[in-house]
């Protein structure tokens, strides 16, 4: 028994909530992407980019790709960084919006700004999390629970136990 590993303890981190957030971002990407592809004209109008439905549909495809990447990959870190890069692109595009629809354009900018903040937090956390995971894990290779080797114990319960 490794006594040292028995006493190893460190306070919990926000890993759970952040992992859940990452997955929610994946689903959010897919949902937003579907909206942008299925209703590009209406979406473009609502965010203050009237007439730029082609661009919006392209962004939709990017969102879906990001979302699938986040949900399907073992390590979503690069996909979250890709989302962050996409956020920057979105903000730059929205900043060139139609002045006649300035109020809706500003709402869209604020929403993207909020999501960008979450993406940045997740990207930072995932990067540090995986750096931490690359550190050695506790060694439990001596924890068989058996008095002899596992091979020697194979079938021991089939034998009669001494009274």
């Amino acid at each position, binding site marked *: *028994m490794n006594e040292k*590993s*028995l*006493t*190893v*303890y*460190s*306070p*919990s*981190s926000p*890993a*759970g*909530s952040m*992992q859940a957030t990452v*997955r929610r971002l994946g*689903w959010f990407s897919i949902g937003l992407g579907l909206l942008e592809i299925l209703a590009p004209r209406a979406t473009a109008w609502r965010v203050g980019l009237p007439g730029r439905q082609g661009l919006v549909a392209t962004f939709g495809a990017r969102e879906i790709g990001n979302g699938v990447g986040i*949900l*399907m*990959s*073992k390590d979503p870190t690069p996909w979250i960084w890709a989302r962050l890069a996409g956020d920057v692109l979105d903000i730059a595009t929205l900043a060139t919006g139609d002045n006649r629809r300035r109020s809706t354009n500003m709402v869209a900018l604020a929403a993207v700004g909020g999501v960008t903040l979450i993406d940045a937090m997740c990207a930072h956390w995932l990067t540090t999390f995986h750096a931490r995971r690359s550190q050695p*894990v*506790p*060694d*439990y*290779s*001596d*924890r*068989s*629970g*058996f*008095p002899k080797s*596992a*091979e020697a*114990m*194979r*079938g*021991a*319960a*089939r034998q009669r*136990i*001494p009274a």
Partner: protein
Amino acid sequence: MRALRWHGREDIRCDTVPDPIIEHSRDAIIKVSSCAICGSDLHLYDGFVPGMRSGDIMGHEFMGEVMEVGAENKRLKVGDRVVVPFTIICGECDQCRRGNYSVCEQTNRNKKLAETVFGHTTAGLFGYTHLTGGYPGGQADFVRVPYADASCVKVPSDLTDDQVLFLGDIFPTGWQAAVYCDIEPTDTVAIWGAGPVGQFAVRSAILLGARQVVCIDHVPERLAMARAGGAITIDFDEESVLERLNDLTAGKGPDKCIDAVGLEAHASRSIDSLYDRAKQAMMLESDRAHVLREMIYVCRPAGIISIPGVYGGLVDKIPLGALMNKGLTVRSGQTHVNRWTDDLMRRIEERQIDPSFVITHRVSLEEGPMMYKVFREKQDGCIKVVMSP
């Protein structure tokens, strides 16, 4: 007294609550000396099990010293050291007499609720949903044990808490899962999940003589512990479970399969698990059944599927055609703990196995809420948390 109480999803707190009192003449009050967080506690923590109420005291793995006994309780006396099985049994009903303790017909005080959801009642359980009686659990300084004369297991003085604590749940659970497999010396037994129950299932299958025991997970330290117990391991993040199992069995598939995962399968890269997640998010499905589907698909025809992993409600897309046409036998259920405790206690006394191998973290009761999170996230190499009130 102090107790860990459920206040909602991911919200466990160490609260001060009134001490329990004798309510029935067969009761006993136990001063808890050791208690543990079980994998199935995490299903409550994550909010997957219906019927929880804010303020419920958690915990169904505990042991301690008898402080007080009811007038009719002639089997226990003050000062006895006991392990308390997580299933509350009367010892008198038809099912108890048959040894089917986890479906005791008397101890669930919310029978009607259970009958509505499950068709019939099951036994009362400590620290679990109100579907199973809503009895206050053992992650506390003291606990009231109903029907204590029937269920409590007395502990010899020469055995430590660490050696016997798990007789209340995970050791017999892993053991029952392996026994249900009717293991033959030629068998390959595949076990999904290298958590605490999976670890005991590995060792039980070895002790019962399986030729080959394979354990599937993706947490490195858990796989290392499974290998220490004699298993061949498969990291499902690194390789195909189906291909590797077929390689290990000359294409025939494992003879026996054990699901030590249950309703929160964490495989995330398969299409069916994404499907489960989506349906769960839309509240169209309660449990994620990836492991069940994989077991049914890969199990050798005429094989046995044993399910100690907890499921709570409804699942979708179970390949019943494969199950039926391959002639698979399914055995499942909460553990009939008292059916196995005498035998397993003897094995511990004979030093055939020391269950304390699985303990990785020891903390105080106050640190319990934080450890739920550490355990759920598998942080810090956490496999089994033991708390000392």
